[in-house]
């Protein structure tokens, strides 16, 4: 079988390659997404004091350090057995909104917009953020400033843009002053205007590119995200898990994230460091589910802010109910960016956020805890066990990107099979479309490869005549 390799996959966070397998009929038979880097945080964090984990795991990534910081701090809350003060929770939420905003802006403006603005078939040398700056300077500048605003939220709350050591088990270290809140509030109108420009652009693009919506990962799957326990509304920091299917039917609801193992299992693939979590009751690989902006908008009832809710209604109208096309991740991200500006405004004007009580202190009261929050790319789980003194004895992290692994493989196979009809002469733009299938999910691979699990092993003792004499599987 012939194999076409796209290596490396560009404009994503981390290192990966794609293999396209050509069948005997000369058509694409299958596609595989291989993540070729390994990080190993689950292993080398063992033995460390759990209080270090927010900052330690934040180092997993330079794009979404806040996601790990917050999820880890929440897990630490569980080890301490405390509920952080209200101000701390709202401050953490504010920082997560800044994180989602900056990461979504990066995904759209820096990584994906070159394909959309300049064209999938444009010259590869110019098909990058610099090409966008040349061709659409105003939009590129606005996009960069939008990301900067998200980073400012993180910096002003946590002291630094990348890897702030701010959220700690029990709460946060410092609360911002009135002036800081006002400075951030002053940046919201411009950010919102840029988001609306992006929204308008994406909608217009969707109107004229029905083929992409049809072909880029348009297939049924389950969707999982956190929702508010009260009304099952859009959630990004606390709440319960909800799983729906491609028709919008609720498959599982009100799941306490601490019980994640009853619902999610992780499969190890031989050709990728990225594990493939799946919904346990449906088994592997039928239990493939998607997380992230698309899933969050699919599973929630409403966002609970006026502008974003209006966009959510339109999003659902465009998708015809449930959004099953990965290409709609772009629109979902833009809707979420709008939601971020609104929720951020709400938190920063909330008098409760100014309370001086923002850190609960306690010793080790639980030997096991699970933290869960929504990273920009989807649901993130941290699961620690500690000894009686607080040294970690085990770490499990389920990263958003891993949960999209099975759908990503299906997406690239769909794109490759649609566009690549003649494998003898493949236009570069077609391969770029396959890569874009991955970009739709905005994967963060550096975040997501921490333990390879038990290595699958299959040994056959084959006799001279080709007969299998003995066989062992692990």
């Amino acid at each position, binding site marked *: 079988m012939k194999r076409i390799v796209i290596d490396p996959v560009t404009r994503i966070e981390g290192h990966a390659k794609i293999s396209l397998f050509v069948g005997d009929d000369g058509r694409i038979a299958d596609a595989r997404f291989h993540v070729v880097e390994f990080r190993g945080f689950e292993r080398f964090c063992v*033995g*460390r*004091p759990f*209080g*270090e984990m*927010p*900052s*330690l795991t934040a*180092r997993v990534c330079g794009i979404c350090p806040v996601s790990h910081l917050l999820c880890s701090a929440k897990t630490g809350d569980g080890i301490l057995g405390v509920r952080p003060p209200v101000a701390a929770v709202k401050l953490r939420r504010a920082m997560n909104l800044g994180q989602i905003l900056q990461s979504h802006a990066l995904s759209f403006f820096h990584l994906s917009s070159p394909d959309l603005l300049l064209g999938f078939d444009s010259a590869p040398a110019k098909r990058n953020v610099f090409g966008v700056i040349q061709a659409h300077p105003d939009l590129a500048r606005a996009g960069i400033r939008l990301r900067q605003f998200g980073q400012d939220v993180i910096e002003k709350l946590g002291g630094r843009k990348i*890897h702030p*050591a701010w959220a*700690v*088990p029990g709460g946060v*270290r410092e609360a911002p002053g009135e002036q800081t809140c006002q400075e951030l509030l002053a940046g919201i109108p411009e950010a919102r205007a840029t988001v609306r420009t992006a929204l308008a652009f994406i909608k217009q693009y969707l109107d004229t590119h029905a083929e992409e919506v049809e072909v880029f990962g348009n297939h049924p799957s389950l969707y999982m995200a956190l929702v508010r326990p009260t009304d099952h509304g859009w959630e990004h920091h606390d709440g319960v898990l909800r799983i729906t299917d491609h028709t919008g039917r609720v498959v599982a609801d009100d799941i306490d994230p601490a019980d994640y193992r009853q619902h999610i299992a992780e499969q190890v693939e031989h050709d990728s460091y990225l594990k493939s979590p799946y919904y346990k009751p449906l088994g592997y690989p039928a239990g493939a589910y998607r997380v992230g902006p698309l899933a969050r908008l699919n599973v929630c009832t409403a966002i609970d802010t006026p502008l974003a809710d209006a966009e959510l209604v339109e999003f659902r109208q465009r998708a015809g109910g449930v959004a099953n096309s990965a290409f709609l991740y772009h629109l979902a991200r833009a809707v979420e960016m709008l939601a971020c500006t609104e929720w951020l405004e709400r938190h920063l004007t909330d008098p409760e956020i100014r309370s001086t009580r923002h850190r609960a*202190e306690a*010793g080790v009261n639980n030997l096991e805890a699970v933290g869960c929050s929504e990273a920009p790319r989807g649901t993130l789980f941290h699961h620690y066990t500690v000894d009686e*003194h*607080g*040294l970690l004895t085990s770490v499990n992290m389920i990263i958003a990107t891993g949960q999209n692994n099975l759908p990503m493989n299906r997406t690239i196979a769909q794109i490759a099979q649609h566009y690549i009809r003649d494998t003898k002469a493949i236009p570069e733009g077609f391969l770029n479309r396959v890569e874009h299938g991955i970009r739709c999910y905005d994967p963060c691979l550096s975040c997501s490869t921490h333990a390879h699990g038990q290595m699958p092993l299959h040994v056959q003792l084959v006799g001279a005549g080709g007969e299998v004499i003995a066989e062992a599987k692990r």
Partner: protein
Amino acid sequence: MAVVTLTIDDKPVSARAGESVLDAAKEAGIEIPTLCHLPGVSEAAACRLCLVQVEGRGRLQAACVTAAAEGMVVRTQTDTLREYRRMILELLFTEGNHVCAVCVANGNCELQTLAAELGMDHVRYPYLNPARPVDVTHKQYAIDHNRCILCTRCVRTCDEIEGAHTWDVAGRGTSSHVIADMGQPWGESVTCTSCGKCVQSCPTGALFRQGSTVAEMTKDREKLGDLVTARREKKWSV
């Protein structure tokens, strides 16, 4: 008090007889790098960072244990010394597991500060990556042996200021490590008074308050010297 006159880096300096070159230089505004020296406790000459060149003496001398003498000519900043100091720092970094980015003492660490000051921008030796334990059994404090540079400040502080002598050093060579009492977990030590002076004396993040998160461990090392001075000069009436 007898006074001696010497020259440090071409600068005439006067010192009390018996005073160390390190102290004499400091009083004259000349900083010599050190990690094991701590005002208030005896010298160990363990880190070797304060090595200086003394005219007429063939070998390099540790300034902390070299007495200032009449007519002595000392050089503290030469290419050889700078190179040796950098090497010493690099070896300290390779011998333990020093990861500043995720350390409780990040930004407040003497080892980190010196490495930056002395221009240690990379390490030329292979890292040993030793497997060392973290002891968090004490209710208030913790010790991470990965970050210990064996300066023995904690040992001397505990012995000479607190008078408990909980800490000491066990093992040989790269297996050397500080132990509480006879090597039991710190939390089970019967001599430890939980005064926390050792934590304040530690130049790195090896000793820290329980629950400290990254870059949160600040230390007040001057307080230890103040304690000793106050005690010697009988500033407290009991």
